[in-house]
């Protein structure tokens, strides 16, 4: 789920056009379209303002982050190295 998808979903549920949403929040239609395409991301506060102006709000709670499998494999790969190898690898990267 992206911020653009949230804005579009809220707007369509409210049954208004991009221009009408723009009027409600004092932005032009093109800016609403950019946000919905995720060409640019609104700030968190602006996102909530956009959703509230459609009669919706975000329901947020913290959830434990679970690394995806690719990240987990990278961590496993680093753990297979010794502390000496990990230090040496970091120093080589710094030297580049």
């Amino acid at each position, binding site marked *: 789920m992206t911020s653009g998808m949230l804005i579009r979903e809220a707007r369509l549920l409210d049954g208004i056009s991009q221009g009408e949403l723009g009027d409600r929040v004092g932005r032009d239609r093109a800016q609403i379209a950019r946000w919905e395409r995720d060409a640019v991301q609104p700030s968190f506060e602006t996102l909530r303002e956009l959703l509230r102006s459609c009669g919706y709000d975000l329901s947020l709670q913290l959830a434990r*982050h679970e*690394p995806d499998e690719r*990240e*987990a494999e*990278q*961590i*496993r790969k*680093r*753990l297979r*190295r*010794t*502390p*000496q190898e*990990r*230090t*040496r690898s*970091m*120093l080589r*990267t*710094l030297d580049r």
Partner: protein
Amino acid sequence: MAPDTPDRFDPLGLLAAIQRRHVSFILIGALARITQGTDELTNGVDITPWMRPTTLGNLELALADVNARRADGQPLSFDTDEPVIELNTDYGRLKIVPQPAGTRGYEDLRRAATHEYLGKGVRPQIASVGDLVRMAGALYRDYDRDLVIVNQLRHIAELERDLGIGLER
């Protein structure tokens, strides 16, 4: 006056100099996390020394060996309640942190720390993954970066438990 910024980073040389003077310390901070498996870069060494007079005397000798001077240009002294003493040395930056955030200092960290060989004869005591999580979690200076690091450390701790590597408190 030109800023006193080290143009060299030789963490093993710096740690070897401290080790040569028999200073009891725990390696903490980014370099400790890297040795434990996080993916990050650093150009400094952070340590928590044992704050007893004998150790601090030895540390003073080691700091003289590496031409340590305070980054802010003030005279070097351990008789201070500053949480961090930032130094520049001939081997790079060194931070002395008597009581890292979220911990009670050397004796607290020593319980779970392990000696690890890092090369060139250097074998410091390194803070445990669990203690590094505590420290990183307590700091949160740069929220996004620190959150990534904390998550990496937690995942390392979980994998170590799964693989039976090391024991966490």
